[in-house]
């Protein structure tokens, strides 16, 4: 057998790899393992009481049924919307495509609780917009969105971009010869769509569907803002209510609930895997993109319809949010006399928790983005260029906390960190640090993916040339590879920052006094009926999010295709 000695240089490499394995293990494998141990110890009869309590409680099964209803409904809506838009944008001579894709994908980047809040402002009896139009339902009537249908509608809008993006990526790679060959064989455009394009898109459709389903099952922001007032409880909100009401004493019980969520999500992924394996339509050739089908006289109506739709689901709710943030109290109509910036002043200057939350979310998101990039640059290097079984497992482990719903990760981290870490004596529970740990675990893969595609586009020779020039691994990473993948790393950092900055699901379960996040404060304001403050804070986060998304235009040219979801 080959016995290659490991001279000094290889030790640096090994140390780095071991460090990365430990980091991933601590962030991903350990919490999930801890949750599984809890599950087995319950199932193993060590303490059956929590298991029985959770499974005997009718609320568990109502929430499970509700979760299925909303997730399936939301997924169906998302798939229909996402597919229609992806096909229209990719295959026709639809104009102003870039602007439309930016708007269509925007809901994905806006926090679900903000989307919910915005919709509530335009649909309720107190809607300043409806009042200005004189269309508001009578005061005291229930907002129609506080219902199962409301949740399904918003889940569908929130996650349609996920289906869109996976399909769009597939459609981009569809070689134009395949369409032209079908046309040459005499097929009209609808026949080509049905017999060639859609079948080839099945893998993307399956992946997008699974993604939308898993996201819907785990969604907390929409379910909480619409479901809690509407007394329509799904599993994530049930977990939240139990934990918020009774504290860590019910931890074993909510662990059971979070495992149910985890099992449903895992089931969705499993079904996807089985289906994907049956439809291996990998496209072997590469070619220029298909030439668009002319819409002809339908072009104007289609474009009008698309932009009207965008206005309805994006612009009007956001406008409602802005209006709500400018009126002095719930139910007051906006005019020159009533408009005020007092709500902004309140959340930015007076309210201590809101100020803290702004600061906390900023530094948590910033720190998470920076640390994730620092870990991802060497991690992606190993994943792309040093294939081995260990690294394949490592790559999957890094994805796990993002694939699993946020509530599952949050409960797992509480179980893991409730007691101080042995040996170190560090107590993270009830501090802001547990949120940072959760962000690192959950969003690592968001930062990692763009950097991986960055490396995949690189000529390996760039590294080897530095190697023969005498540069050690750390030197190569620092002086050669990091600068070259920097644009992709910046994109990854931005995705992490925006997602963490807008995040609610994880921090709703992990926050403590003094460690609030923006999501938590917006949610608390709305729960306390102070929609004006919630709206003001939400407008600020949307402005920052859209501003940062727009700021990427400067370096987007240098990015691998598809790295920034809102860039078409």
């Amino acid at each position: 057998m080959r016995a290659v000695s490991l001279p000094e240089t290889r030790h640096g490499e090994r140390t780095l790899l071991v460090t990365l394995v430990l980091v991933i293990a601590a962030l991903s494998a350990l919490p999930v393992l801890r949750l599984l141990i809890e599950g087995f110890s319950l199932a193993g009869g060590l303490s059956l009481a929590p298991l029985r309590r959770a499974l005997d409680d009718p609320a568990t099964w109502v929430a499970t049924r509700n979760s299925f209803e909303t997730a399936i409904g939301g997924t169906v809506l998302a798939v229909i919307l996402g597919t229609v838009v992806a096909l229209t944008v990719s295959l026709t001579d639809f104009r102003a495509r870039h602007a439309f894709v930016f708007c269509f994908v925007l809901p994905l980047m806006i926090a679900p609780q903000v989307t919910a809040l915005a919709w509530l402002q335009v649909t309720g009896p107190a809607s300043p917009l409806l009042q200005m139009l004189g269309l508001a339902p009578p005061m005291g009537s229930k907002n129609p969105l506080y219902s199962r249908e409301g949740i399904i509608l918003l889940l569908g809008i929130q996650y349609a971009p996920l289906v869109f993006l996976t399909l769009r990526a597939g459609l981009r790679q569809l070689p134009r010869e395949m369409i032209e060959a079908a046309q040459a064989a005499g097929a009209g455009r609808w026949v080509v769509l049905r017999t060639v394009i859609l079948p080839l898109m099945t893998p993307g459709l399956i992946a997008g569907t699974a993604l939308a389903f898993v996201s819907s099952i785990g969604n907390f922001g929409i379910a909480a803002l619409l479901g809690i007032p509407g007394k329509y409880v799904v599993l994530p909100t049930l977990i939240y209510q139990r934990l918020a009401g009774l504290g860590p004493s019910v931890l074993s019980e909510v662990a059971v609930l979070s495992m149910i969520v985890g099992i449903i999500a895992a089931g969705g992924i499993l079904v996807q895997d089985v289906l994907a394996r049956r439809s291996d339509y990998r496209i072997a050739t590469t070619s220029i993109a298909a030439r668009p089908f002319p819409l002809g006289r339908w072009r104007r109506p289609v474009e009008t319809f698309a932009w009207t739709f965008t206005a309805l689901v994006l612009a009007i709710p956001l406008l409602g949010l802005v209006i709500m943030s400018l009126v002095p109290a719930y139910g007051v109509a906006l005019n020159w006399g009533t408009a005020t910036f007092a709500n902004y002043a309140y959340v930015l200057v007076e309210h201590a928790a809101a100020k803290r939350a702004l600061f906390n979310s900023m530094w948590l998101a910033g720190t998470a983005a920076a640390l994730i990039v620092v870990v991802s640059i060497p991690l992606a290097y190993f994943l792309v260029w040093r294939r081995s079984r260990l690294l394949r497992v490592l790559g999957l482990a890094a994805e796990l906390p993002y694939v699993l719903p946020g509530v599952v990760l949050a409960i797992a981290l509480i179980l893991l960190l409730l007691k101080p870490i042995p040996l170190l004596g560090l107590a993270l529970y009830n501090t802001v640090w547990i949120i940072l740990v959760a962000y690192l675990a959950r969003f690592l893969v968001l930062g990692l993916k763009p950097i991986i595609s960055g490396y995949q586009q690189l000529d390996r020779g760039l590294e080897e040339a530095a190697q023969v020039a005498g540069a050690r691994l750390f030197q190569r990473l620092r002086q050669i590879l990091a600068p070259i993948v920097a644009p992709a790393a910046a994109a990854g950092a931005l995705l992490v920052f925006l997602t963490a900055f807008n995040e609610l699901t994880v921090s709703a379960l992990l926050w403590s006094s003094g460690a609030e996040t923006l999501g938590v404060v917006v949610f608390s304001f709305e729960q306390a009926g102070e929609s004006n403050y919630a709206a003001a804070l939400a407008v600020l986060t949307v402005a920052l999010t859209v501003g940062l998304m727009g700021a990427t235009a400067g370096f987007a040219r240098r990015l691998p295709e598809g790295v920034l979801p809102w860039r078409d």
Partner: protein
Amino acid sequence: MARLTLESVSRRFGAFTALDRVSIDVADGELLAVLGPSGCGKTTLLRAVAGFDPVDEGAITIGERRVSAAGIHVPPEERRVGIVFQSYALWPHMSVAENVGYPLRVAKTPVPERQRRVDETLALVGLTGFNTRKPAELSGGQRQRVALARCLVMTPSLVLLDEPLANLDVHLRHAMEAELASLHRRTAMTMIYITHDQAEAMALADRIAVMDNGAVLQLASPSMLYREPASETVARFIGEGMVVDADIAGRAADATRRHATIGSIPVAIRAPAGSRVEGGARVCLRPRDLAIAAPGEPALEAHVVRTLYRGGAFRIEARAGATGDEILRLDAPEPCGLKPGDAVRLALKDGWLLG
């Protein structure tokens, strides 16, 4: 003194043998070309010498130092081997001077000396004044020179060139070929030149190692490869060789030749020392060994299969009943009235007895 020695180096990927007991000695200052079709193992050979891949068996020695063997693997960063990559692998975020100076920066060479040596090396490759340009602002030929300069600046013990001209267009390729040759003369550096283009290898190399299926078939000077191929494979691969059956009937007056009969035509062919003096054998013919026969001259009766105009001359491809399926190729000066299907009589001038 040998600069690079490979002793029976083998490299396997699963059941596939990429390098099969390869032994090569490269003398100090020599330019050795490694020539073979794609998949023949030449890139694996380069990567083993550079240290990117370990060897399964055998040993590699650079200068006095054993760098690869069972239990030994000196990493690439410690081998002081320069490589010019096929893609050039210039770092896009660094200027020309930064690219070229990188090996010195890694070696912590003081800045003034670094600048001086970068300037000297850029002058050597004819890029004086390009210091601040970025790779994206250079033409293909200029990138090639930067890649060369980056490799030369570290005064490597050995330079590996991986199909360095493959990405250039035809005109530039000839110019760079001449420049590489002159650079090799001036620097007297030991170079290993990987290529699948035999014209390039013939033009540049002191010696050529012909590889196929992971093994070295023959290692010899270009003219030896052409005149005296060691095997049928080499004979066919190099110089448009044809291989036909012959009967050998004793030594010719010139002792290095044999009397041979090819399809009833007698011809005195060259033969390796100690080769057979009688019996059936295989013979390598080059296009220049064939000619259209004068009237009355003993000749193979053949018919033209194809004619190709090559500017000033025609390449004639013909088939003779006596030599079976082998396509016989020869050049005929313009004007030439032959068309496919015409009968033609081919005289044999020379040949090489394959051992």
